[in-house]
């Protein structure tokens, strides 16, 4: 890592070094996306110009992606390590500019509009933040104090999170929190993740339980922790502090819930089973449910074709997959995503460079979060959070940024053999 040449591609035919599984999975999902977009956008009523057809535009974006792909592949791998922070800072600046001069779409001022093309800086910030997090992790040795590492990572994630929240795009902001999942692979105590899980559970229960009841539960949990500490060597101070923190958190969450916009509260209530299904969500569930085992066949879905499902070629595109592909088709697509994420993890594991490995985990976390939240929300498993299904949802900004994110990892992997000195 201290030697820049470690990342260089030495082969005469560098493309041969691209990981074939990753490349094929990336292309396969992208091409499936184009077909799904075509089906989800079909509407005999609306006659569009050839170039205005969403799937044609998506194909154009696929070709546009070739430009950054070639640039990235031609670049020196170390370049991205060196430029991780400049990129990060640059994307933060863009996030600020977009708040001031951007175009507001769907209540979020997070878009730059250039004629027919709209770009969303927060999409690209995901990649640059991943690079930054990887760079932070890579620059610490094992003996570096854990606190410093955590503090720096949290700071790197918090800035874009805050800016995107301020733009009014809470869903995208959560992605930056999700990048934190990559820390699982870092050398930090697993108890922290256990705590994280506890925080998540407490937050969830805080919304369905009475505050005092939850407080009692948390206190009980703390008691169990203290008893446990008599058996295993766990610092009691930690347990007491964590219990106190959880107790506070359990009381804060219901309060913050009250500050949420009504539609956000409603989305949460839907998932918690309070109140009936939201109509849009019901239509999405009907679309998926009516696909049954084998689906209605390509371009034969009525729910999506006749506008019953909202945002059917962007955020809710999975309902088209479910309706037309049935259980077989949608599980098939999920398997492709699982393979993609799994492959990224496997490839990350073979990296000699800490930076490359952490970057791999970071983008695996992003993809996992996107797929789980997006697919989950179309089925009412998680609240409706407007984030796209990677590589499938219609939209140039999203497609381009996910492509760059993955191609960049493929490029880093191509230089893995030269990075023996690291690790």
């Amino acid at each position, binding site marked *: 890592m201290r030697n820049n040449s470690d990342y260089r591609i030495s082969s005469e035919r560098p493309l041969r070094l691209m990981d074939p599984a990753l490349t094929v999975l990336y292309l396969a999902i992208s091409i499936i996306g184009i077909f799904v977009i075509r089906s989800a956008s079909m509407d*005999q*009523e609306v006659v569009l110009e050839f170039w205005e057809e969403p799937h044609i535009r998506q194909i154009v974006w696929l070709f546009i992606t070739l430009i950054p792909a070639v640039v990235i592949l031609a670049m020196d791998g170390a370049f991205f390590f060196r430029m991780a922070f400049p990129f990060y800072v640059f994307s933060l600046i863009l996030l600020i500019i977009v708040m001031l001069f951007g175009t507001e779409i769907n209540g979020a001022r997070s878009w730059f509009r250039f004629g027919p093309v709209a770009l969303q800086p927060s999409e690209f910030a995901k990649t640059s933040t991943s690079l930054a997090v990887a760079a932070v992790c890579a620059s610490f040795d094992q003996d570096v104090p854990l606190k410093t590492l955590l503090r720096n990572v949290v700071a790197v994630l918090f800035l874009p999170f805050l800016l995107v929240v301020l733009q009014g795009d809470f869903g995208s902001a959560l992605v930056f929190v999700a990048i934190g*999942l990559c820390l*699982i*692979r870092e*050398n930090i105590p*697993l108890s922290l*993740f256990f705590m994280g899980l506890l925080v998540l559970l407490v937050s969830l229960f805080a919304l369905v339980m009475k505050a005092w009841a939850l407080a009692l539960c948390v206190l009980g949990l703390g008691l169990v922790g203290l008893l446990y500490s008599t058996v295993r060597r766990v610092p009691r101070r930690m347990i007491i502090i964590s219990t106190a923190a959880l107790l506070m958190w359990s009381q804060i969450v219901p309060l913050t819930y009250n500050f949420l916009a009504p539609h956000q509260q409603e989305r949460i209530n839907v998932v918690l089973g309070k109140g009936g299904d939201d109509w849009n969500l019901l*239509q999405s*569930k*009907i*679309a*998926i*449910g*009516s*696909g*049954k*085992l084998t689906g209605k066949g390509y371009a034969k*879905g*009525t*729910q999506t074709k*006749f*506008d*019953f499902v909202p945002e059917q070629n962007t955020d809710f595109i999975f309902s088209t997959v*479910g*309706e037309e592909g*049935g*259980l077989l088709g*949608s*599980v098939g697509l*999920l398997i492709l*995503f*699982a393979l993609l*994420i*799994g492959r990224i*993890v496997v490839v990350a*594991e073979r990296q000699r460079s800490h930076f490359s490995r952490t970057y791999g*985990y970071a983008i*695996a976390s992003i993809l*996992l979060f996107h*797929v*789980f939240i997006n*697919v*989950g929300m179309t*089925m009412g*498993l998680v609240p409706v959070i407007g984030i796209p299904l990677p590589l499938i949802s219609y939209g140039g900004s999203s497609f381009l940024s996910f492509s760059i994110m993955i191609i960049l990892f493929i490029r880093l992997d191509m230089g893995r053999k030269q990075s023996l000195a690291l690790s």
Partner: protein
Amino acid sequence: MMENAARRRASIFLGLVITLFVLLASQLFNLQVLDERYHAAAEENVVKQRRTEPVRGEIYDRHGEKIAYNIVVYDLEALYVAMEEDLDTEALAEALGMPLAEVQERYDTYLEGINTGTIPKVRKYPIIRALDTTTSMRLREQLLDFPGLSLSPSSRREYVQYAPAHLLGYMGEINKNELKEYTTKGYRMGDYIGRGGIESEFEYALRGINGEAYIIEDVYGAERGKYEEGANDIQASPGNDLYLTIDLALQQYARSLMENKKGAVVAIDPRTGEILTLVSTPDYDLSEIMGVNRGEYFRSISNAPGNPFLDRTLAGQYQPGSTFKTISALIALSSRTWSRDRGYVCQYVYRLSGQTVLKCSHTHEPSQNIGQALMHSCNPYFWEVFKKCVYGLRKESYAQALDDWGNACRSFGLDTTLLDIGMAESKGNVPRSSYYDGLYGQKRWAPTAMISLGIGQGELLLTPLQMAFSYSIVANRGQKVFYPSLIRQIGQNHQGKREYKDVLDISGRDYEAVIDGMRLAVSSGTAKGNSIPGISFGGKTGTVEKWDQPSHSMFVGMAPLKEPEIVIVVIVENGGAGGSTAAPIASLMAEKYLRGSVLGPDRKALEYSIKTKNTLTWDEK
């Protein structure tokens, strides 16, 4: 050690990935395989059953001439989401040629429906129905000024000129009360149903059977194609055409003669009982009553003098006056209390028990026989006939005698309805002894009290149809009489005739004597001047005096007298003497029917004078 820790952490991450994907897959399995609620819901969302309208049956006359048929009209439809904030109702009313208040009312009703959610915002909804071609073409040019409004073709009833309005009835939008009864039969709000007359009586036969179409609808309720290429659709079956017994040409001719007159005309073919003409005036214009300004027109007709909605032919009840003398004579002859050659010297006055003095309205030669009495329409002769008849029939009591006389009247089809279809028909009245018992007390009255019944006055009431039927018995000389009928054919089914069997036992010679009296009345009696050259025409006049208004002019005629093919009843209220207005109309109609047209300058002059004659009272003009 280090490697193991790394492997463990990698597996934790991969475990998380697998957990979340398994979670997603199990929810998919739940929705797509386990939970059956969603399976059919998508189809229910998009496949909608729509009703297809059958073509209403048309109505024809006896010769297959169209009387009522369907024309293309246009419904003005509104699509709320495409409309502007406020519809310029003033401009729309002007474009439509409708009063502003009515357009405003319809628009307000529409908005109310939108606000209460009964009318979908995204679907076109008719706000004004059945615009005629001229109006819709004018509106079409200005339609751009009214965004969200469009015209959609539909069909409406249209009728030929002088169509028998009361007989046919008209079409009106179904109302809430009717809807309760009709929903089970496939009707719904906004449908048109027959109102009154044939349109109502044969509603189900005419309407046809609704079809079903399965269409695909998008989330906005807009049609997006047929479901399974229409494989499950059921075609609507058109309604049955109806063939009436009416002779349209005669009907129209009679109506033209009745212009500016109030009254009724009934023509019947005595050989079959088929009704050829039913004219009741004042009437109303069927096209207007279903046109754009139907509301206004309906109100004006409801308030018009002379009650235009009353069907005088079937529901009007008249004292038959002297036209009843024929029947009165036949009853007396049948009872053998009088003979056809019996004379009676009219002394101008007629004394009854020295108390009442009645006068003959005519000055004439003494009547040698019953025929001459009919020719002169001599009142004292027929008082005498009635008196002799009732006294002669007297058995236990006057009451019995009067009831026997009444029953003889009933055998001529009086005091009952005659049609076997549900038309607004009155039964008229032949008084019973019980009526006079109530009036004067039992056994405290003598037939002298109702002597005027003998000349068709007093409590006796007949409908014009009953008059025509009683005279067709006479015309047939009591042989092979059929009930009056209006329907020849429904769809492919020919309608049978009902033979009338309750004819009184009257000898052929007595019939001939009475018919000869009718011949004389036209050739040289009360209806003089109405004979038809080359056609033997006869009839009996009636002049029913009204104390404060001109008399009702009545005439019942038949031709040719040897074997009559037509019996015609004409009543012109306030038309003066029977021979002056009613008889010429019957005479002209008989010639028109038997010959096809009215021939000769004298007859043409008569036709012209009748057509231009106005007998309406001052408040009706």
